[in-house]
């Protein structure tokens, strides 16, 4: 599985979304499942998928589908 596939799978499984929903418009609280509970579940899924542990600050600024990719690639060496 590529990193992008892992990333997308976490979003689709945790937030119960179709692939078509994964785009730049997908931001925190734009869908019902991405609330504060969903957010922590998503973070846990991503940490497990990439075997990383994110910093508190990054959890807080992870507020959209594109922003997440940026954080993972810049700070955690996940290449997309």
């Amino acid at each position, binding site marked *: 599985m590529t990193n992008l596939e892992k990333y997308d799978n976490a979003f689709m499984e945790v937030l119960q979304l179709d692939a078509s929903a994964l785009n730049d418009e997908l931001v925190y609280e734009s869908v019902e499942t991405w609330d504060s509970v969903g957010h922590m579940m998503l973070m846990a899924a991503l940490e497990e998928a990439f075997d990383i*542990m994110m910093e508190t*600050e990054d959890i*807080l600024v992870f507020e959209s589908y594109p922003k997440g990719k940026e954080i993972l690639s810049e700070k955690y060496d996940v290449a997309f």
Partner: protein
Amino acid sequence: MIDYEALLAQKPYGMTQPEKDAFYREAIEDLSKHHAANCTEYAKIYRQFGAGFALPVRLFKLKELKSVPADQVRRTMTSSGTSGQAVSRIFLDADTAARQTKVLSRIVGDFLGQGRRPMLILDSSAVLKNRTMFSARGAGILGFSIFGSGAKYALDENMELNVPLLEEFCRKNENTPVLLFGFTFMVWQHFILKLKEQGLHLKLNGVLIHGGGWKKLTELAVDNDTYKQEIREWTGIDTVLNYYGMVEQTGSIFMECPCGRLHASIFSDVDIIDPVTMEKKSSGRGLIRCTSLLPTSYPGHVLLTEDEGELTGIDDCPCGRKGKTFKIYGRLAGAEIRGCSDTYEKR
């Protein structure tokens, strides 16, 4: 209005009390004006008593107090009162909710550092089942989850110890500092007493953060020292940090430092009020009045609690954190019995 970004960039315990007093005078004036302009109920109070008048916490049970239009309310938080009791309802818009999370992160980060730790939540996984109505308990767990990674729940849905999970957690984190989080009374009743009952000693190292009130433990004659001792004995955890906070001012909690004092950060302040004259007291016991700079979607910036406390110092804690420190004696006798996050009724 308050420049929250600038405030968040500052050290959470870096402001001396004289600096803070000057800053708060203006900030509370601004916040009071904001709420008076946006909340009709608050406007009446403001006209009569002026800026910074402390609302009794129970007012949030009697009135729907909000300073934003209904369609901007993202989440309603409730104190988890027992059945038959009225609950407080706190209305959060996106800005206030986000601010609460950021401030909590700054405050707790000062004690834990930026790195996250494997986390064990000393509660039942059932707490977060209902995602639309947030109880104080659910909000607390969720709020603190940002400091942990891969959070596990120590208790099953029936509030019983999940022993296999605990053993696995200990094995995995033998050499890693961990974070334990729970509510004061529930940690005692459903975790420590159960470990004792089963003679199960955990070998962990790290920090336990707990809050929610001592009311029930005071009845059982368990004080903070005994609590810490038992935690150390049964889990191996030797840093136990209590916090004081309330659903009406989520985020800007008061953390206990390793010297055992509760600290007000730059995001909130505390005063002791004489319950008879309603004047501020510089020494001795009185009612705790809490000021928080966070709420803009509801007028909860200055609140008179029903808890009794006493100041223990100003800018002088050996831990180096500036500002006021205090201690709590519990609910003031005669105050209304009030649901808090330690209300868990036995089924």
